[in-house]
């Protein structure tokens, strides 16, 4: 949509290896986090990103160990607060590329409040939420995105909570960019590029396989055999087709809802299949709410409609308020209701012509 950012920032030529640190990666072998890390390290050179101007900020969780493995600046903060720390980083230096890495527990449970507010304010950053539908680091308790009935150490008889839908939460919070992908998807890189190129808060939900505590919960659409019918990769300006082009998403005008239609001989127009418009917020709402099972999982850039970003507005307002004023400390402390004590009686400093007129001492 809006690739001004990449155009205005000087491109720096790097290769994948430049983004690897000397730290031993400590995720469980086979964890989906490895694939996401590689995808990010592969994508950063494509973006022309500059390691010295790149900051990864994370909370706490397996996912939040991410910054230690990327050769850039990185801040592993406290549980749930990465968006708030990132807001301070970006306001202090708007030139930095800020990436937030969070988990379903970190970003939607303890840090749900901050996730909501960073999206509403629209801070220019990329938010990668690794959704494994479990608390990985604390050894497998159910999380706010766990499906009802999830058996875990803290829910031996199955959880009874209604799960949160990260993308719907983000959209409801005012996000202007929503995308979805999964750890080993080859399209993840394209999604990251789109997120980076979006000026404002870009929310990316990445389904991640926690092979230890929640193995294969996304297999219904990520497994090769389920991919065709289970995945709907949306693309701006293209019809919403899946199942190798044999099925599509159309609007049920009566129910004001989406429906799956069959497409014969590639004639999607006849079937009434919708053309994806990334700026259409109503369609975005329907896509993020689309129930998996009777529908495929909507993946790719679901919504991308930039608006002015928070740090831009802050910088602009600060500059406007400061314009024409000189930061004179002596004058500042001399303001207010002043008077002068001299050998004679006190006089109103305003009358004596000195109020706010600079050093008198």
């Amino acid at each position: 949509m809006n690739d001004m950012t990449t155009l205005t920032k000087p491109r720096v030529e790097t290769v994948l290896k430049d983004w690897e640190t000397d730290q031993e990666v400590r995720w469980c072998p086979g964890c989906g986090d490895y694939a996401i890390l590689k995808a990010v390290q592969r994508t950063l050179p494509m973006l022309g990103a500059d390691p010295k101007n790149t900051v990864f900020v994370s909370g706490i969780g397996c996912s939040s160990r991410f910054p230690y493995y990327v050769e850039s600046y990185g801040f592993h903060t406290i549980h749930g607060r990465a968006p708030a720390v990132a807001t301070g980083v970006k306001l202090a230096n708007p030139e930095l590329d800020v990436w937030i890495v969070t988990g379903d527990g970190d970003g939607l449970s303890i840090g749900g409040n901050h996730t909501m507010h960073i999206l509403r304010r629209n801070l220019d950053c990329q938010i990668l939420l690794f959704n494994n539908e479990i608390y990985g680091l604390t050894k497998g308790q159910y999380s706010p995105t766990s499906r009802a009935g999830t058996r875990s150490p803290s829910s031996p008889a199955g959880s009874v909570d209604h799960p949160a839908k990260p993308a719907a939460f983000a959209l409801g919070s005012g996000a202007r960019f929503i995308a979805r992908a999964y750890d080993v998807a080859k399209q993840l890189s394209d999604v990251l590029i789109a997120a980076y190129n979006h000026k404002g808060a870009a929310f990316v939900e990445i389904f991640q396989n926690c092979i230890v505590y929640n193995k294969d919960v996304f297999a219904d659409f990520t497994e090769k055999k389920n991919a065709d019918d289970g995945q709907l990769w949306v693309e701006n300006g293209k019809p919403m087709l899946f199942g190798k082009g044999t099925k599509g998403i159309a609007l049920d005008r009566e129910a004001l809802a989406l429906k799956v239609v069959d497409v014969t001989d590639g004639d999607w127009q006849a079937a009434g299949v919708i053309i994806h418009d990334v700026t259409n917020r109503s369609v975005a709402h329907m896509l993020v709410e689309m129930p998996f099972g009777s529908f495929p999982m909507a993946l790719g850039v679901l919504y991308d409609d930039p608006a002015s970003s928070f740090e831009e507005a802050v910088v602009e307002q600060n500059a406007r308020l400061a314009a024409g004023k000189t930061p004179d400390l002596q004058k500042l402390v001399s303001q207010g209701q002043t008077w002068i004590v001299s050998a004679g009686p006190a006089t109103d400093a305003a009358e004596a012509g000195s109020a706010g007129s600079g050093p008198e001492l």
Partner: protein
Amino acid sequence: MASAASQSTAPLASDETVPEAVVVRFAGDSGDGMQLTGGQFTLSTALAGNDLATFPDFPAEIRAPQGTLFGVSAFQINFGSSDITTAGDAPDILIAMNPAALKTNVTDLKAGGLIIADSGEFNDRNLAKAKYESNPLQDGSLARWQLLSFDISALTLESVKPFGLGNKEALRCKNMWTLGLALWLFDRSREPIVDWLKAKFAKAPELADANIAALNAGHAYGETAELAVPVKQLHLPPAPAPEGLYRTVTGAEAISLGLVAGAQLAGLPMFFGGYPITPASAILHHLSRLKEFGVTTFQAEDEIAAIASAIGASYAGSLGVTSSSGPGIALKGEAMGLAIMTELPLIIVNSQRGGPSTGLPTKTEQSDLYQAVYGRNGDAPMPVLAARSPADAFDVAIEAVRIAIEYMTPVMLLTDGYIANAAEPWHVPDMSTYAPFKAKFLETIPEGGLKPFARNEKLARPWIKPGTPDLMHRIGGIEKEVNTGHINYEPANHQAMTELRRDKVLGVARGIRQGVEIGEETGKLAVVGWGSTFGPIHQAVRRARRKGHDVAHIHIRHIWPLPENLGDLLKGYDQILVPEMNTGQLKTVLRDQYLVDARPLNKISGQPFRIAEIEAAIEGMLA
């Protein structure tokens, strides 16, 4: 209109000589504009050259039901020709705008003191709301005091008649009528108030005119009316003060100015993250108007986000500052640990209020000392400073910034509701006398390679901001390896890092010497205080010394680490008394650190100490 007068032994009776200091309390309904009246009276007092101290005391409710006892708002000012350090123990004059204001305040009034009451408000309804069974203005129950009561409401309505205001708006001018009378009483010029009214109501000149008319009418009333009590005008000569430019300043203003000055002296932009809470909000309000000093203010979604964003800003090379009051400081605890662990500079201002929980949000207390010194998980040392008065808060804020930057550490600055709101005259400092302490960033790879947790002679690590070429590195809350900063869980390393963090903070005490405010460096009794108890301790010790007692006043600014000589100093006294507005927190720290027999004097009523309370304790100990 007239009222019963009592025998006049008051300091204000016509046959008395001029007192050295006078305490006046304005009390009314929260809608009566008492804080504004007090503020303007304060300005007039300052212009008259008197020294002064004020105590605004208002209810927690924004618009408490009219006429109720809990809706009373009061403003006390103590002013005079000598050094004033407290808002005064007991008022000499009480101005009561309604029965509730009289009821909640009159018992504080000195015997023989003067009550000025608006009899127009003493109707059945208001008397019932104040739970008076009969009208105190008429039933003789106020015989211990002098009473002047007249229908201020009616007199105000009369004076503003020409301006065609509605009844409600016209009655709003009551406070200016009352102020006019008070100005007459102390022989003050009306001019600055008239100028202020004109500026305040520049957009509504009829309101300016009406208020000025009410002010003039109140003044004229004093001058011409045959007052029932023979009250004469009082002119208190100016207090001796060094020559120069003065202004009034509240603690909240002084802290804001001090933080800005500190950031400027450090050559840093300031980032302030805050979330509204009484009585800390005023700092957020002040700083949000100072953008030309490179200040960015951020109203966060909660206190945790406020401190977390400030930590992010410090990480990126700004001076991160956050501010709150007890409940919010509690929420920031975990993030303070992060700032300690990542060794980033940060200022946390705690405007203490009565606790625990929501407690007494608009009342003052010093009960967060433990929280400041000890209140975090893990061995999490952090320097703590305390301001003693509104004007002192300026220098303390600068000191906090200096320590934060020189030692790469978060610093907590303790103030309280009293200091935050109270105003006092401030000899405007000459900024050229403050030595800069420029912050330095590491910008190139040092010899031997990049070590983000290598240390200088102060044990401070280098400050490296993102955006710097070649110095990319990762920091976080997990224990770090000595020097390299890599994740490290080894037992010996954690021991070493914990000790380094402790020693770094203890090192702040180097060169910090505790002096004695009044008295000798050894003796029978030291009264040791911190924070806003300065005023009453100071006066109490002064009075006791005048009576010949061997007593000294020590007031601690550096709460943690304590000044390097404090232990030796305290051991030079036979006895130690620690007055605090808590249940004995500094007392416990002193006992723990120095094994001295510090005795507590505690007041937890949400009100500052009276001088007499401390004086009595001193005499008790020396008896």
